[in-house]
């Protein structure tokens, strides 16, 4: 997994388990997930609703709901952060380790001007004066291509479009020059045109800012344009971990291949019916027997229904959890 020699990974998750205490006993949301993100690497995390893709990083950020429990290890820049006290986490969160979410409206405080919300980050984390922080806030808006940044600083969130709010959130996440930016479905609530603009902003940052990035989405089409490596999750587990180019050219897990087919595209000119996965994803709480994907898998055999396939390397830098992988 260590692809960058001896350098310390920016994020190292090992054997992470997330369970929720609910009436009727604990429910697993994340099962034994391990992953690493190297400095400056962009990792894409793909999966359907309920696959646990968000839960991995909510656990890492210490943002689980009160009935959630995480175990295992999450090392950020070499330091263990799982189970860290809130005060210690607060020094990292929002400065070195930042996260943006799907809904940029509910991520911003409705009654504070954009400028105040941005400047506050630098005042809190970096001890800037309000005047200097405001200046920096204007610069960061320019960097994420917000038109008329000085005017925006004086506006409230409701005065901005969805795309503009997401740019503000990205700008806010960059203020303290983080080592890692986690973007959870950053474009899912936006129009396709605005989505492509936000992706362009993130793409630019990949090459300008010296930070790692994790891009979480249900849409492989969104992740594919940006990620160096892609991890596919299903029912709380990693089922494929491979370089993005490998995933796009020859997916190894049948689930990955099907997800790729489902991306609505304009290529297959004569296609009438829209490709989709049959059935629905098993969410948290299901009992594990065999491969969780077997009920929806065209390649499933008796073996798949009885025995869970372990995540194993099929060749260099590609790991797959499948008894019958495609293109060996």
């Amino acid at each position, binding site marked *: 997994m260590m692809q960058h020699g001896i350098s310390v990974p920016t994020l190292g998750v090992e054997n992470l388990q997330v369970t929720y205490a609910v009436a009727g006993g604990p429910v697993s949301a994340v099962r034994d997930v391990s992953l690493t993100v190297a400095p400056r690497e*962009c990792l894409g995390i793909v999966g*359907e*609703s*309920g696959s646990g893709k968000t839960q991995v990083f909510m656990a890492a950020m210490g943002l689980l709901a009160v009935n959630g429990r995480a175990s295992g290890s999450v090392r950020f820049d070499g330091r263990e952060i799982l189970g860290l006290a809130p005060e210690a986490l607060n020094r990292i969160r929002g400065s070195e380790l930042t996260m943006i979410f799907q809904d940029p409206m509910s991520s911003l405080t409705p009654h504070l001007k954009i400028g105040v919300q941005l400047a506050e980050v630098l005042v809190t984390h970096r001890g800037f004066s309000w005047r200097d922080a405001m200046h920096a806030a204007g610069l960061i808006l320019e960097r994420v291509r917000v*038109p*008329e940044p000085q005017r925006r600083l004086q506006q409230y969130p409701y005065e901005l*479009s*969805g*795309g*503009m709010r997401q740019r503000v959130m990205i700008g806010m996440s960059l203020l303290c020059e983080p080592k890692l930016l986690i973007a959870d479905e950053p474009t899912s609530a936006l*129009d*396709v*045109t*605005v*989505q*492509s*603009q936000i*992706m*362009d902003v993130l*793409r*630019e940052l*990949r*090459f300008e800012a010296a930070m790692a990035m994790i891009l979480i989405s*249900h*849409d*492989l*089409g*969104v992740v*594919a*344009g*940006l*990620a*160096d490596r892609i991890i596919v999750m299903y029912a709380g587990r990693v089922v494929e971990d491979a370089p*993005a*180019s490998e995933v*796009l050219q020859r997916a190894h897990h049948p689930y990955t291949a*099907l*997800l*790729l087919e*489902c*991306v*609505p*595209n*304009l*290529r297959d*000119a004569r*296609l*009438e*019916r*829209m*490709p*989709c*996965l*049959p059935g*629905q*994803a098993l*969410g948290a709480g299901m009992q594990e027997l065999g491969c969780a994907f077997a009920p929806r898998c065209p390649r499933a055999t008796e073996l798949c229904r009885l025995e869970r396939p372990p995540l194993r390397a099929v060749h260099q830098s590609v790991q797959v959890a499948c008894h019958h992988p495609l293109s060996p």
Partner: protein
Amino acid sequence: MPSPAVAVNDSLLEVRDLSVNFGAFSALTGVSFSLGAGETLGLVGESGSGKSTLARALLRLIPAARGTVMWRGVDLLSCDSATLRRQRRDLQMIFQDPLGSLNPRMTVGEALAEPLEIFEPGLAARDRQARIEEMLERVGLVRDAARRYPHEFSGGQCQRIGIARAMMLRPKLLVCDEPVSSLDVSIQGQIVNLLMDLQQEFGTAILFISHNLAVVRHISHRVLVMYLGRIVEEAARDALFAAPAHPYTRALLEAVPDPTRAPAGIPRVADDNLAAAGEPPVGSADPSGCVFRNRCRYAEGICEREIPRLEPVSAQHAVACHRWRALATSPDPTQSAVREPRPA
């Protein structure tokens, strides 16, 4: 009164010069089109283009400032409320947020029974139950779902419930407002394919609203493209995708993410020139010219001065652009049409 740019045989719905104002803001300006029985019309545009406003104005859920909506000999906008209520059984709608559009305190069975109780009050309870179970199975749910509550279902299943409720009375028109935008891409196709099957079976006409042309393409016979409250292009599906005439339509096509198109890790050249640039202006523009000109890289003097009217490109294709003839001969139809907007 303007007639639609593209004629439809056997039309079910005839919309003429429909305009909606929110205060001083004109959300919809002079929209005219037809919808044939059993036809699917795709309606595409960005947030703020007026597509949801159009859907709501058609069904008189919001008041129109001007225009007519002729539906089987009745103008839905001027008829009395009793007449409107009678027509509503044939005019159903499903929404973007499938869970939010279901009453959390009603079981699925109760939600599906409601339209029958209102429009077929004479139906025996046992027959009603049978109709509900039949429809649940038809949309791919188990009969048992009738006894459960909406929150027990996934987003995709909730959308199936919404469709089942809308189809209970076998409507002649189903308006679908972004029915798959909040769903995982892996199951969007399930819903789109289900709608196509139901249309085959019941002959329902569908108005399918989406911001994603790649989704609209699968289901639509014809497509309307809207921008800032106006129709800017109208065409039969294949004609539109083979040769999009409006620069805005081209921009929408370009914005569809394609995993095979953007190589990972390599920045695309001249990102600024791609559809990437700009968003529709917020607020009423009260344009003296083309509403798209501030984002259009082909805009010329005439685009500032004159509002382009829909004019025929071919029998099945109309566009509202002063420059479409010049652009039609440009070598690459996917060549970007959009640039950074000028500050207002």
